[in-house]
């Protein structure tokens, strides 16, 4: 008989993530896909892929929790939901015990969450209704420059200078980028400036405590951004093993807690 597993669904504005954990909280399966327009189909796809990776099937699911913007909108294996703030906090606290500040950079929003030593939230901040500093900003720049997202890291590393963008607004920033291209500035220097602009927008959202954890899809796919963040913060930053899945992992941990706290391990979902 297989061990029960616990599932977290993080239905984000940009990507949908599913995490499957065992009874010790260890991530044993995960999958990610663009959220697209059919949330239910995407959630199902990610669930099946992550269960397959974990070597289990739906009957083995003991409990599940959903999070992310689509947490209340999708037919899934659960009716339980938690906010992504709570789930990111839970997921990061699992990886890094003690007092931490979490910087989560997602496709459409950023969060700065401060936790005390017990993992309880002291405060949190989300970006205002603005794309500055989010993955959407990076995607827009990638599109304007016609450079694939996955090439931007390497290009930024080749920069000899940095062209700083002065504007807060994504649209104005794009105009600035085009202006710099027109003036013959090296693309690598411009891309470095794009990363700088992005991380600067995030860091100015709130003050930080000593230990800083970076998470989110943008962090997972842009190691250059992480290096730059550490440089700007002035000390190394902590990265979970699967930064894009901290929200889903946290949701799964809530599912595990629910079972642990109630003693129910029903496998009835």
């Amino acid at each position, binding site marked *: 008989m297989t061990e029960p597993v616990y599932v977290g669904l993080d239905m984000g504005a940009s990507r949908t993530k599913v995490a499957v954990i065992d009874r010790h909280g260890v991530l044993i399966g995960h999958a990610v896909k663009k959220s697209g327009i059919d949330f239910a189909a995407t959630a199902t796809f990610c669930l099946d892929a992550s269960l397959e990776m974990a070597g289990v099937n739906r009957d083995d699911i003991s409990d599940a929790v*959903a999070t992310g*913007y689509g*947490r*209340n*909108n*999708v*037919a*899934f294996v*659960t*009716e*339980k*939901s*938690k*906010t*992504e*703030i*709570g789930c990111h906090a839970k997921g990061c606290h699992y990886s890094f015990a003690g007092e931490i500040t979490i910087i989560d950079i997602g496709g459409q*929003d950023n969060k700065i969450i401060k936790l005390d030593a017990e993992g*309880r*939230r*002291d*405060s*949190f*901040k*989300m970006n*205002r*209704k603005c794309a500055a500093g989010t993955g959407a900003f990076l995607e827009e720049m990638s599109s304007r420059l016609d450079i694939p997202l996955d090439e931007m890291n390497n290009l930024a590393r080749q920069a000899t200078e940095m062209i700083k963008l002065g504007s807060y607004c994504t649209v104005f920033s794009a105009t600035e980028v085009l202006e710099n291209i027109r003036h013959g500035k090296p693309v690598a220097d411009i891309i470095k400036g794009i990363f700088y602009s992005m991380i600067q927008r995030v860091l100015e959202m709130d003050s930080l405590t000593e230990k800083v954890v970076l998470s989110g899809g943008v962090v997972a796919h842009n190691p250059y951004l992480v290096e730059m963040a550490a440089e700007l913060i002035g000390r190394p930053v902590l990265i979970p093993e699967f930064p894009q899945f901290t929200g889903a992992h946290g949701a799964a941990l809530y599912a595990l807690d629910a079972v642990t706290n109630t003693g129910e391990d029903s496998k009835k979902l």
Partner: protein
Amino acid sequence: MAQEKQPQRKKIEATGQMMKIMSDYFYDLNDAAKAPDRKVAWCTSVGPAELLRAMGFAVHFPENHAAMLGATRMATELIPEATTIGYSPDICSYLTADIGAYLKGVSPLAKAYPGIEAPPRPDILVYNTNQCRDVQDWFSWYAKELDVPCIGITSPKNFTNVTDILIDDVTRQIEALIPTLEKISGQPLELQRLRETVALSRECTELWRQVLETAAASPAPLTFFDGTIHMGPAVVLRGTRQAVDYYQQLLTELTQRMTDKVGAVDSEKHRIYWEGMPVWGRLRQHSELFAELQASVLVSTYCSSWIFPDFDAKDPIRSMAKAYLGLFIVRSDSYKEEYIKEMLRKFHIDGIIYHDAKTCPCNSNSRYGMPQRLEKETGIPSQVISGDLNDLRCVSDEQTRTNVEAFIEQLEERR
């Protein structure tokens, strides 16, 4: 799929009576605008309404009309009408929605009150900039458009204490309005009538205070969202007997709720302070959102701003000056912080929501470090939500929901 949770909110029985007196008020205004022997004044919400009423004017409050545009969700489509004639979408969305409605020839009054087509045409416009500069710009536009006089009080701002110097200043400014008002109304100011009006205003605001303070009880018998609706008479009928009678009725009902331990929100677990303007087009949604989470948003600076303990019939004009200067919005941050701290204590608050209204900087108190200072001093956590009073293009429902739910989760963790 996540089930829609059923909000648990209690309806206030006196609402029917309030709707009736508000309806009577709007029909009377409409009649006044058509009657050759009556005069109509437009007044800002904490302008010299007592003076206008005592001189026989029927008084229309454009801020009330603008809030109705917001609550009926008409505002967002009307704001661009004002933008096209040069009024930025970044300035007061009361102003832009109201002027937009005028330009488009629409009004929520027409939908709510058959026979009324629009706000009453004014004979004079009277402002007090204690709210903000935008009210002066707003009234000035109508003055030119309708070719009517526009006079007002230019209020001191950002002071901590209401000193004699400031009171002298505003007293003289109120007195200076009188000759123009007498000319328009065609009758001299009768001091006795002003005393009676000020006495009624005092009585009204005293009852309104008692109504709001019932929320100090646990569970709180009314919420901020109830308050934004039931403050209508305190805004537009201040200085009248109808408002006094209404608040006596409302107070009786809420006092009974207190006795019976009936909360406005079922199973109240969290007690929340709301700082800033309501999002008029989302009143119901926000009310339900908090109720679902067993959180009672039970007190606010906004609703409490219509409490004027300084009105004094013995010294009417000077006491009006004092009352208008006492307004929260016109004071310094150090005064505001002391005020809020006292409210947090009195109402046993667990958390504060600051509404950062995009187009209302004067009523958005999260922009100069106040949340951080108050949190440090009181230990009471807070959360800022971005939005607007009227312009729903500045509102993200999902961001609001996530922020509020996560904030309540945070309070839950700390219990």
